[in-house]
């Protein structure tokens, strides 16, 4: 079983999750952490560590999705990487969350494979109109 934590700047996590749940239905294994300008990084880091501990105790692996490579949410999360226990993907988008909600038979795959699969899926789901509308 995998739990997903979306870690972003400001309130993006909250709204991204609300939107994903609006489309795909509630998901108890999907939570968000938004980092505000006024937040102390160390406090956020400790909060994430506690969340991860809680999931691990419940027998769940943790997939962290961050909004932008190089940003604080990503920088904090990368330091929490643990092979096969905590994996981090940066550049989260709505297709990725929807894919996680429905499209992966999670029990059959390892954390690393799932992370690789959604990374590829997120990339593939960015389109420019000219790519397919220009004849």
């Amino acid at each position, binding site marked *: 079983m995998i739990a997903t934590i979306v870690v972003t700047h400001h309130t993006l996590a909250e709204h991204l999750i609300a939107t994903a749940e609006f489309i795909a239905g509630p998901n108890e294994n999907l939570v968000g952490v938004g980092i505000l300008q*006024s937040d102390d990084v160390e406090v956020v880091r400790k909060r994430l560590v506690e969340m991860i501990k809680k999931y691990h105790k419940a027998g769940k692996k943790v997939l962290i999705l961050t909004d932008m490579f190089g*940003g604080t949410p990503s*920088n904090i999360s990368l330091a929490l990487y643990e092979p096969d226990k905590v994996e981090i993907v940066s550049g989260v988008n709505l297709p990725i969350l929807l894919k996680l909600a429905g499209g992966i038979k999670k029990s059959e795959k390892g954390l690393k494979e799932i992370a690789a699969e959604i990374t590829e899926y997120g990339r593939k789901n960015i389109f420019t109109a000219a790519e397919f509308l220009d004849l």
Partner: protein
Amino acid sequence: MTTVLYRVDDRLIHGQIIASWVPYTRATRIVVADNQIPGNLLQSKILRMSAPPKIRVEILSVRQAVTFMAQQRSGPGLLTIMLFVGIEAVVQAVEAGLYLTELNLGNIHSAAGKLQIADSISLSRNEIISLRDLQKQDVKITIQPVPTAPARDVFNLLQSKGW
């Protein structure tokens, strides 16, 4: 070499730096001056990775960073952003011979007993004293999270809080 920004930021290289300050200043190098990070392999690696690909990143102790900046000064080329995790590191750098005329405060976060003077700036008594010492050495100190936000004078804000 020209230093385009001296900044105190406890998040070091992060969104505001890579998305705002680097394009605004056209910086091509970031020097992180900190006494802990050079000894922490994981943190150093994450910091290096978080910078845009064309930016050179130097992660040095405060003392090494000051020497590095002095050596580079005479040479041509890179526009540099110098980052400090806290005010204490700036004081150490100035004691070690760093010369600066302007200091940007970006993110200094709250802890018990600190006075919050802006969204992302909370100062301890010692930090306020250090800032006053820097001011006496003609360093202009402003709070400005991103280039498009106004630069606010730190002492005006302190005054409004009764300091």
